[in-house]
Each structure stands twice: as C-alpha cells, then as structure tokens.
C-alpha cells in the first residue's frame, strides 16, 4: 500500500460528510408538527420519570378528610373520592401506561419484523405467513383480549405477583395482536429489496442467507420499521387504556391512565377533572407520538426530504 504518499493528497479534497442521521434530523426539524410532538412527548416522559420525586405524595395515600377536592397547591389536580392525590396518581399511572406502550410496541415490532422478513424473503413462507397475518387481522380484537385476560389473569398473577403478572399479560396480549401492520409493511419492503442487485452480489461472494437478511436486507427496510414503531406506541397506549377502561387492566390500586379514566367516570358529575386529566394525557401522548411518526416518515424518505 502506498498509504503515506496518497493520504496527503486525498485528505484535502474530502468534503465534510454528513451522516444519515444528521440529514434526517435536519429534515425532521423542518416539520413543525413533529417538533411540537417531540417537545410534548419529552415533557410527558420527563414529568412521568422525575415528577414523583418532586411531587413526593404517595398516590395511594387515603386522606378521607380531603375528598373530591378541587385544584389547590397541595393537590394540583385535586383529589378523588377517597382523598388520593390526582396529580400523583397521574404521574404514577403515566409511568405504567408509557411502559406498557413501549414494551408492547417492541414486542409487536419484533414479531412483525420477524414475520415480515421471513414472508418477504422466502417464497415458500410467504403464503402461509401472510394468511396467518390476515387471520390475525380478521380477529375481533377487543373480545379476544377480554377472553385472554379472563383466562390467564389469575395464573399469571400467581406466578409473577399481581403487578408484574398483569403487566406481562397486558404487554403480551397487546403485542401479539398488533404486529400485523408492521409485518405487512416489512414484507412489502423486503420483497422489493430482495430483488435489488446488491443482494445477488452479496450471494455471489458467498455470504450466508442469514447474514444477507440481517446485514443487507434489514438495514434497508429500517425506516418503515421505525415509523411503524412510533405509531405502534400510540396504538398500544390506546389499547391499554381501553382495556383498563373496561376494568380488565391493572388492579384498582395500581393506577394507569385508562384505569383513572375508568374510576373517574363514575364521578364525572362531581369531579369532572378526574376524567379530563387522564383523557388529556392519553390524547396528548398519542397525538404527539403520531406527529413524531409523521415527521420521521417524511424525514426518512429522501424523496420528501428537503421539500
């Protein structure tokens, strides 16, 4: 190698390279909705993570002398019919709701990507796997979720304790019932990437199938996967809220936004704030996450970038 001699010459004209993510960030920054979404979502995440340390009130502390109170310094969002501090409950509930949303999304993403890549890459698996996907899409989800939860709630509670048991169950049922969109998107993308010449080129130098899938195909379908991931969080949060609202989510002393909504609905005439706050939190989170997904999709698509 003639390295020392050539290095000097070539270093000069090397222009400053922008990494892909710099480009994506620059495009993302131009999307006002996405920026607002990121700010709101970040605010919610920070509040939920660090809020309980600043507002150090036990969300389960019963103060029967201070029931159904309005907004005050001690209780920024008032109290419920048992005198529990609503703000503390909102923060604690947000932790659970976001954790459920995030983990369920991860599970759905892994499942969906796995199924999608296999179906797209291997002709023989395409038919069976996509029919399975259709089957899952055809299932009436809410009744199915109810049945699964009814069936397995007690066994899982016994095995993992009431809280982690129900957490695992809910994450599992949401994940298992929401991977289908990702699978379809990923399959379509893989079908296109598989035919690209660089895949044949990789095979022509003897790269293993598994490596072709993980190193050559997967990175090329990453952007739709990421977009579907952000939208998946929103979807999972909504589903968890719906389950809790139906009384099938977490136990009553374990607040989530959906659970708070469910508990507050009975008192809507006395303390409407108990419904408004959790409803607002759910809506804001879902809306901001959707905007982030939207901005990400635009930023990751080079054809839309720079418009």
């Amino acid at each position, binding site marked *: *190698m003639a390295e020392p001699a050539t290095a000097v010459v070539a270093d000069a004209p090397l222009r400053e390279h922008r990494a892909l993510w710099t480009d994506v960030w620059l495009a993302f920054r131009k999307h006002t909705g996405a920026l607002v979404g990121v700010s709101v979502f970040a605010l919610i995440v920070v509040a939920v993570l660090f809020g309980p340390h600043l507002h150090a009130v036990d969300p389960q502390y019963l103060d029967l002398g201070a029931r159904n109170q309005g907004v005050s310094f001690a209780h920024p969002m008032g109290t419920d019919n048992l005198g529990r501090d609503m703000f503390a409950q909102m923060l604690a509930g947000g932790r659970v709701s976001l954790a459920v949303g995030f983990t369920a999304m991860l599970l759905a993403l892994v499942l969906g990507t796995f199924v999608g890549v296999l179906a797209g890459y291997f002709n023989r698996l395409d038919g069976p796997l996509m029919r399975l996907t259709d089957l899952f899409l055809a299932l009436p989800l809410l009744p199915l979720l109810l049945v699964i939860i009814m069936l397995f709630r007690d066994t899982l509670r016994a095995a993992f304790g009431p809280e982690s048991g129900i957490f695992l169950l809910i994450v599992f049922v949401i994940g298992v019932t929401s991977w289908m969109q990702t699978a379809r998107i990923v399959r379509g993308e893989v079908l296109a990437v598989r035919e690209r010449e660089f895949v044949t080129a990789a095979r022509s130098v003897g790269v293993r199938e598994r490596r072709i899938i993980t190193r050559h195909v997967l*990175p090329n379908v990453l952007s739709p996967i990421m977009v579907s991931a952000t939208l998946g969080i929103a979807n999972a949060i909504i589903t968890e809220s719906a389950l809790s609202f139906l009384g099938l989510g977490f136990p009553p002393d374990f607040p989530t936004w959906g659970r708070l909504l469910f508990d507050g609905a009975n008192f809507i005439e006395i303390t409407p704030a108990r419904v408004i706050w959790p409803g607002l939190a759910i809506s804001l989170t879902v809306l901001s996450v959707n905007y982030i997904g939207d901005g990400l999709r635009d930023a990751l698509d080079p054809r839309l970038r720079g418009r």
Partner: protein
Amino acid sequence: MAARGAPAVDGRCVLDVEDVRTRFHTADGVVHAVNGVGFRLHEGELLGVVGESGSGKSVTMLSMLGLLPTPPAEVVSGRARFDGVDIMRLGRDALRQVRGAGVGFVFQDPMTSLNPVLTVGYQIAEPLRAHLGFSKAEAWRRAAELLDLVGIPSPASRLREYPHQFSGGMRQRAMIALALACEPKVLVADEPTTALDVTVQAQILDLVRKLRRELGMAIVWITHDLGVVAGLADRVMVMYGGLVVERADVEALYLRPRHPYTRALLGTLPSVTGSGNGQEARKRLPSISGQPPSLTTAPAACPFAPRCGHAFARCWRENPPLLKVAGGHEAACWFDVEAGAPRRQRENGPA
C-alpha cells in the same frame, strides 16, 4: 495477440461447463433462455462471451452459480466442473464456498450492486471473513490492499465511505475488488463496463489487463461490445437465442468468422475511418434485419434461420450442433460460408 492467445489454450482446464439449459416460467408462458450452452475455460485465459440482449449470456453464468431466483427461473440441466466437482450439483454450503472463494462475479451495474447502507469496506471485508476466516482487522487491512490494487487512492480512508460517495468508475473498481477479495480462480464479469462512460471503461479494461498479468486468473467476460472483446479476449464465444453459435480464437473469429450471425454482427460495426468518400460516410449503419428469436419454444430449427441470408431447407428442419470448422474453431451452421455451399453432412462430426 497471438502471443497472448497461444499459451492459454495449452493451460489446464479450470472450468468445464456443459449443456446448461434454463427456462423462465413467466405469466406469458415458458421462455427458453438458455438451450444447452457449454464452454471450457483454461487457466489464465480470457473468454469473451458476446451476443445481443436476451441471448442468454448472463443467464448461463448465473445458472452455473445458482444465483437465479427460482421460481421464475428453472435450471433444467447442466454440468459445470470446477476443481474436479460439479458445482451445479453442490449443496447450499458447499456452493457458498465456491461463490466468492472459487468463482468471483462482477455485475453489470455498479450503481445498484453495492449495498447503499453499508460501507464499502464492510462489503469487501465480508467475503474475507466468511471464506478465509479473517479477523475484522485483518479483513480491513486486506480490503485496503484490494482497493489499492484496483487503483483507488487513499484506500484506508475510502473503506469507511458509503457507495454513494464513490463515482461510477470507482464503484465498479470496488465491485472488482470485492469479487477479487478471496482470489478466485475464475472471475465472471457480466458486462462490467456497459454502465460506464468510455474513458472510465478504458480505465477498467486497463485494470483488468493488469490484474490478469499480476494474478493470472481465468476470466469470462460477458459483453455486447465486440470492440472490447477484440482487444481483451483470447477466445470468443458468440451466443444467439440461448445457444452457442460460434467459438474460436479471437483472431480467427474476427478475421474469418464462419457463422452468418457472427459475420452479420461484425458487419454492423461502424468504421472509425469510413471510406473517405462523403457519400459513403453518410450511409446508414448496417443492421441485421428481422427480430431476435422469441424463445417461447425450445429450438427445433436453427434460431438464426429467419434472419439468415444463407438459410436453406435443412436449417428449418434441424438445429445445427457446434461443428468443427478449423483447428480450435467451431460454428453451429449447416452452411459453409467460405465455400458458399451447404456443409457436407457432419464431415468432421460434432465438435
């Protein structure tokens, strides 16, 4: 040219391909893309494969290495002896060892045959790690040497770049480096210069000449550029309609083509000098009249007969096999263009 061509013929045969037949099952029916193609490649030899689009040049090579998507493709038959084994009968893992380590492949379009999301270095290092068990650091060092070999300046820093930061010519150089990574005995180059402009093409041709001198590998060079083949190849194989129609040393083919198709093909080449006569220079370029064969059925007659000026009754009845017409020169034609009369039936037997 003679000096270069001579030793190649004596060399040991490294790749012996016989009777490759490949069909494509399409919505419009079966397409018989390759109908019994065979060739031999000797050590250090450069075999030019010429023919128009759809004549089965690339499909033959891809079939040999099992790189066609099946379905729609179906490799009906074929034997390819490489290193004493028939690589068309190998299992998946053994075949993977041959690809890259035994036979390298350079693709036509350098713009699409490098993965846009991986660095060039990663892609060159990949076969080294897979086949030769190099460590990551070793593979990168070797990749830098390879880039240097194919004439890319400051290879070490270039390795960390992505394909979009390379120009077309550099990408093709990188593709060649990738195919050469494991020092294969045979390099199949599938129209490697078609997508490049003429200056870059000339550089790549120089590079291939240099690499041949230095590494001594056997090369199959697929192209439809007769000029490139004339300057590069030792032997030439002309394909038409999924069949080999003529096979000869390069001078013999250009000086005394024996198949009407080859003659017609050479007749279409524009002359740089022209005849000097203004009238003559403004003449249209000659072309071969008629359409390429449709290939929807396996050939029962000579596929070139409909476009051939010499076709006679037998051409429509029987598809001619490759017949020996001179030392090391075979043509698949019932008509002896030099004698101007039909060839006497199998005077020399099939080659």
